[in-house]
């Protein structure tokens, strides 16, 4: 649509160029404000789409993303549990380009020049911006799990970024010997998707219960408590009694060394031979945020709540997992919610469109077993200091089966909703 407008405009200006003076027309074309978005995930794809859609061609939007298909981390646990097939979690950028006129560039951003206001990509091209939006997700903190580095991800997968890691972890689970052992090294706070590791455990247990019922699952966890803990532990007791062993810091869960060569895992001096070892390391903002110089000493990018602008550079906005914003969990829902607030603020700044007060919300659904879904959600508002939680809810133990089933069905609706909100 927008693309068509632009073509029409160019055709008109070419015709006009003979009558008027060409440079003037060129100048007018360049005066369009430019937004560059780095990262085409939950935050970036949503921001690019909303800015393009709502500015109706008044803003030039470029989206830089290396992958041609985005495989969502959300629902990747359901892929492991055989509830959803892997291919259905992949999404193309085609509609963002063809229907919304976004300039989609499949490349990796490797540099940001904040003075010149330009982004460099691996192929060497440069993109100038008036506003830059960074939503590069997470990277792992190297050395955070003793004995593991990124080169070991093919042996001991994290399955905590989009792409093929979830499929690899699933294949490893299928290849486990009868009665084998699955070990998860859980991450310290803060990390993306607080219930994610525990939904993962539920889905692994579901699969093993069907295919390898004498197998064991061990979680080594540096945290004394985790998201939806009461719901998950009750669910494991209900559905997978005796299969899941959770070792918190009191039992040495925070003192772990892995050896990818021998598949041995040392948990506080106890040696465990793992058949599958799922290492989820500590996390920090996606590397490009650090390169741009908008991260703090903890590795995250502090932002102002009202418009998600960086506290270090008013022309850069940081969304989603990379941002340090306050009370919102790092989730796809949150990133999508923040992106819409940011898109409105950026349009307001560049075109003078109306800016309404920022409102944020989040709900995270998790599946514990077939038709046994739970959820946690909250509302948030922007304060001077941070994004602050106002009120929230969480599923309760002892809910009837119909409620749990409805909650699961709702999560399928949410998945369809958010992916169409991201990719059009």
């Amino acid at each position, binding site marked *: 649509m927008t693309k068509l407008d632009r073509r029409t405009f160019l055709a008109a200006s070419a015709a006009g160029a003979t009558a008027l003076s060409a440079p003037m027309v060129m100048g007018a074309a360049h005066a369009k404000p430019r937004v560059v978005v780095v990262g085409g995930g939950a935050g970036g794809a949503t921001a690019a789409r909303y800015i393009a859609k709502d500015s109706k061609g008044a803003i030039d939007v470029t989206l830089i993303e290396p992958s041609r298909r985005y495989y969502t981390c959300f629902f990747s646990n359901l892929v492991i549990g055989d509830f959803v097939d892997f291919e259905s979690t992949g999404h193309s950028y085609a509609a963002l380009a063809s229907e919304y006129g976004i300039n989609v560039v499949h490349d990796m951003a490797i540099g940001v020049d904040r003075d010149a206001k330009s982004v460099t990509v691996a192929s060497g091209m440069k993109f100038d911006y008036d506003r830059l939006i960074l939503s590069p997700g997470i990277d792992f903190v190297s050395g955070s799990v003793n004995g593991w580095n990124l080169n070991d991800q093919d042996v001991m997968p994290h399955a905590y970024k989009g792409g093929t890691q979830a499929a690899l972890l699933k294949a490893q689970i299928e290849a486990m010997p009868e009665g084998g052992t699955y070990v998860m090294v859980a991450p310290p706070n803060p990390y993306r998707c607080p219930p994610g590791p525990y939904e993962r455990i539920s889905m692994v247990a579901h699969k093993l219960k069907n295919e390898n019922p004498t197998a064991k699952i061990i979680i080594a966890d540096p945290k004394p408590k985790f998201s939806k803990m009461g719901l998950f532990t009750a669910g494991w007791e209900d559905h997978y009694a005796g299969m899941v062993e959770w070792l918190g810091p009191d039992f040495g869960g925070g003192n772990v060394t892995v050896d990818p060569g021998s598949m041995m895992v040392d948990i506080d001096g106890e040696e465990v031979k793992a058949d599958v070892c799922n290492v989820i390391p500590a996390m920090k903002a996606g590397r490009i945020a650090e390169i741009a110089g908008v991260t703090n000493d903890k590795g995250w990018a502090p932002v102002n709540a009202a418009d998600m602008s960086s506290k270090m550079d008013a022309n850069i906005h940081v969304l989603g997992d990379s941002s340090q914003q306050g009370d919102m969990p790092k989730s796809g829902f949150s990133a999508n919610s923040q992106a819409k607030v940011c898109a409105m603020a950026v349009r307001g700044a560049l075109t003078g469109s109306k800016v309404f007060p920022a*409102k944020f*919300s989040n709900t995270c659904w998790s599946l514990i077993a077939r038709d046994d879904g739970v959820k946690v*959600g909250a*509302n948030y508002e922007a304060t001077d200091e941070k994004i602050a939680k106002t*009120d*929230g809810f969480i599923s309760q133990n002892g809910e009837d089966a119909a409620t749990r089933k409805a909650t699961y069905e*709702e999560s399928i*609706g*949410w998945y369809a909703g958010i992916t*169409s909100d991201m990719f059009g």
Partner: protein
Amino acid sequence: MVNDLMRAVMFLLALTMASPVLAEAEGDHGRNVFKKCKSCHQIGEGATDRVGPNLNGVVGRAAGAIEGFRYSKAMIAAAKDGLVWNSDTLDAYLTKPRDYMKGTRMSFSGLKDARDRSTVIAYLAEASTTAASNRDPDVAPEILTLEGDPDYGEYLSGECVTCHRSDGGDEGIPSITGWDNAAFVTALHAYKNKHRDHPVMQLATSRLNDEEIAGLAAFFAIQQQE
């Protein structure tokens, strides 16, 4: 018409006589299944048309027969062809409404389970004549007639479309496009005042004022389903 009603009543009677415990369970089940319908349909004494037509006497009624209700073209055509709602036609329709009647405005994915269908049809036959059961409370007329700003509604809708697809798709989460204004406003106030018990919707509506609800209603009323 009388026949179908009789059949439904006889069916219930037969169940009651054979096994009172089972009959009660089936009745409860039907009432529970109806919860999925009642965000759009009213039934019982004083029921009125909302997003969907009121369902009093629907078992045995000709399709598309409620005067003044804005039916889809598909429903009007089916009515012309003589479609009558009885336990068989309702069973077929409710299995997957959009398969049975392409173009129906009822955006409901269907009841796959045969027991769900038979019990809810029995409930429909029975509930028409009983007292109204927990229906959304009426909204004050000055709130209902508040003129919403669809542009403001469009901005606010960003929060809705994370789950409710803007193209009107409705897998697992109902579609909210193309609703009648009053029905939309009444439903949102029912969540806000905690008469409807969905926690995500209660949370979302808790911070919407009357004007914002009116804006959303105005915006979604003009959205087209694909």
